[in-house]
């Protein structure tokens, strides 16, 4: 009997009607739902992007603030992390535990670099840039934007603005997704040292991978819509 029980426990995943494991169906349903989360945020951003560009006579040229080289770099890093993730999933399916561990580690590092870039970016946007007179200008906060200071020696007056609201909440939500992904992957990385990891975990790691690729794809949408479009239209 005990043998039979142990055998049953090894097979957590029962046969399903479609042949697709339950956890995978759950993950796809969640990702479908998550599309709507980002869809709502991106719509909000697009609706406000032009409407509120000149609130209170304070014209906002967001290109003065953006650091497109840095964001392009972090976009590349995030895309590259998906390669590591795919390799990790492939490795665990083949039962190559050491390769799985280090591919997970690579994904974590690249995810962390992306997050660090975002933290740097947010900090600098809020803090603003120093102009030739030593004044801070182009400060973008959640609620206001301080454009160029009109007179030498005076700080630019921050005026209410919506761009900061939509920008920080949208990219911040994406950053939160990346951070959750990094912690999830860290969990697997730590688990790989317990000696319990086996091909039985392949499905769970694959679900984690689905999530990671999805978050990546969302960024592929956000990068042109929020950043590149400002240079085109």
């Amino acid at each position: 009997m005990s043998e039979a029980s142990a055998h049953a426990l090894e097979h957590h995943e029962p046969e399903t009607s479609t042949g697709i494991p339950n956890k995978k169906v759950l993950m796809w349903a969640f990702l479908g739902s998550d599309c709507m989360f980002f869809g709502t945020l991106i719509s909000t951003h697009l609706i406000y992007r032009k409407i509120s560009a000149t609130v209170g006579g304070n014209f906002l040229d967001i290109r003065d603030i953006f650091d497109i080289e840095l964001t392009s770099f972090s976009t590349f890093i995030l895309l590259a992390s998906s390669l590591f993730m795919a390799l990790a999933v492939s490795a665990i399916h083949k039962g190559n535990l050491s390769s799985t561990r280090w591919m997970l580690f690579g994904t974590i590092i690249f995810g962390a670099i992306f997050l660090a870039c975002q933290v740097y970016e947010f900090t600098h946007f809020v803090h603003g840039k120093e102009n030739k007179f030593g004044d801070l200008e182009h400060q973008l906060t959640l609620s206001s934007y301080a454009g160029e200071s009109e007179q030498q020696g005076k700080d630019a007056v921050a005026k209410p603005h919506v761009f900061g609201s939509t920008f920080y909440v949208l990219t911040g939500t994406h950053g939160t997704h990346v951070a959750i992904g990094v912690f999830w992957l860290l969990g697997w990385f730590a688990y790989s040292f317990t000696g319990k990891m086996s091909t039985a975990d392949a499905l769970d790691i694959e679900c984690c991978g689905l999530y990671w690729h999805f978050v990546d794809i969302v960024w592929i949408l956000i990068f042109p819509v929020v950043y590149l479009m400002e240079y085109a239209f």
Partner: protein
Amino acid sequence: MATESIKYLTPETETKLKSKAFPRPHQNTSGIVNWLTTIDHKKIGVMYGMAALFFLILGGIEALLIRSQLWSHNMEVLSNREYNQMFTMHGTTMVFLVIMPLSAAFFNFIMPLQIGARDVAFPRMNTLSLWCFIAGGITLNLSWFFTGGAPAIGWFGYAPLTDTRFAEVFLDMGPDFWIFSLQILGLASLLASFNFITTIINMRAPGMTMMRLPVFTWMTLIVSFLIILAFPAITIALVELMFDRTYGTNFYDFLEGGKPHLWQHLFWIFGHPEVYILILPAMGIVSEIIPVFSRKPLFGYGLIIFSGAIIGFMGFAVWSHHMFTTGMGIVATSAFSILTMLIAIPTGIKIFNWIGTMWGGRIRFETPMLFALGFITMFMVGGFTGIMHSSVPIDAQHQDSYFVVAHFHYVLIGGALFGLFAGFYFWLPKLTGKMLNEKLGKFVFTLMFIGFNVTFFPMHYLGMIGQPRRTHSYNEGHGFEAWNQIATIGAFVLGVGILIGVYQFVTAFFNKKLKDAGKNPWDARTLEWTLSSPVKEYNFARTPIIKSRDQAWENNYGPKENHSEKVPLDDHGVHMPDRSWYPLVSGLGFLGLVLGLLFHQSIDSNTGEILRNYTFAIAGGSIAIFGIIMWSLEGPAGYHLFPKETEE
């Protein structure tokens, strides 16, 4: 069941489980721990139902206070602000804490039985949904006890009513409670829906093809998809509102460049599918009941399902008919008007199919059937006024009048609540093993039907002669008094009817005098009626092999080749997952997180600066994360049962 038929896990696993921080309770545990740690979809369904019935009484009391205030002109039963709080809390409670969880109760209890499954796909996640729902209910109603009292912004929370500038007047925390309770209720609904989708797609018994699924299960699937696609819109809208109120963003702040109009769009992109989230489960229940009590198979099974799916699909394309008077422009208004008229077609198809089912049938007028018939007729009245509103010029006249109140109460009480009550009378014998008192049931139906119509029919007229909704009082001389008094009397009759009904449902679990139900008291058609009442914890002793759509009926009356067969039990027996504390721990963690966020702000009395203290929020979040990590480490584990083939 006989103890020798239970086989536990290997001794090593048992001791490993015991050494954990929260040892998993034994599967035969009883009392309060039994309910707190259960992962059984049937017990979860019961708890959903009981909590929702409690909130039904609470929301009903709020409704009766509103009706008392409107008894005559310039009454002062409630102050202006209290009146606003009452209709806000009444609406929010009835939508999120009554109709949705009552539907979830039926999804939980009935759906796995109808598809021949032993549980839902993720039993512990199912428990977490329950605790999140209860946490949301607690959070919303806690608002009464804090600064500013309950929210006074309407269940729709339109900007700029939620603006913090009002907080300076009232020191108002109500909207914050409203925001956070809706967020956690949204989490509950999302988790439950992911679970139901996976269960229906993946855990059907052999032979249970999609086109053999009972209509109620189909509606569960459609509603679950609506929930996972509609709730994100309000979640994000609420996140933006929370940022507006807490961190000074300008999403909905007109003076700072935001657009209050955006809130209405985001709210109704969620809010209109929500209407179908509320009504489709009731349609599913009625589609189960009418064939049983007409002794005929369901007429137009495929069409009913297809029109349900069409309703769900089109439900995402009609939200702006709630906003015809906001000035969206002719093109948008006309498009939404036409789509709204079109959505009447699939609804009409369903109604004709129900009539077609009854046509020529041998109809038995027992309580479930009476409520189902009440559903069809009353929902039709609400549907007709709905079609009237799809016409833009008429809508402009009806906007914000009592006509609209009449319309949606015909849909939500005459429709959804009657459907859910029909479900209670139909399926409670399966839950408790006892028949409900038929005479009392008919009495409840009579009271509710009369009370409901006396309350809400006069509101059509009141709206047409100009009584505005959401308004604390009215002056003398408009001729509103008489009809308002009739409506108030009706509301109390309806209230008594519902109260007796709830009493009957709750006591059904304890009342020893009730007759035994047996396996199939109604001579019903679907798979859950092949099981004993109450259902055993493992549901099916042997997984059935499905041969036809109305399997219980075919087993009794059909030709031999249509009788269901059984999958023989292999040497593992029935695998039952273990109980767990962690859904409750995580649920409490989420409650702590929400309360911590609610109370993280304080104002320095000297400088007037806002101080922020996230200690409690972080503590709550950590508990939730701890619960989730332990949850994933403990695994489903489980034990094995070897019931005899007849023990089901």
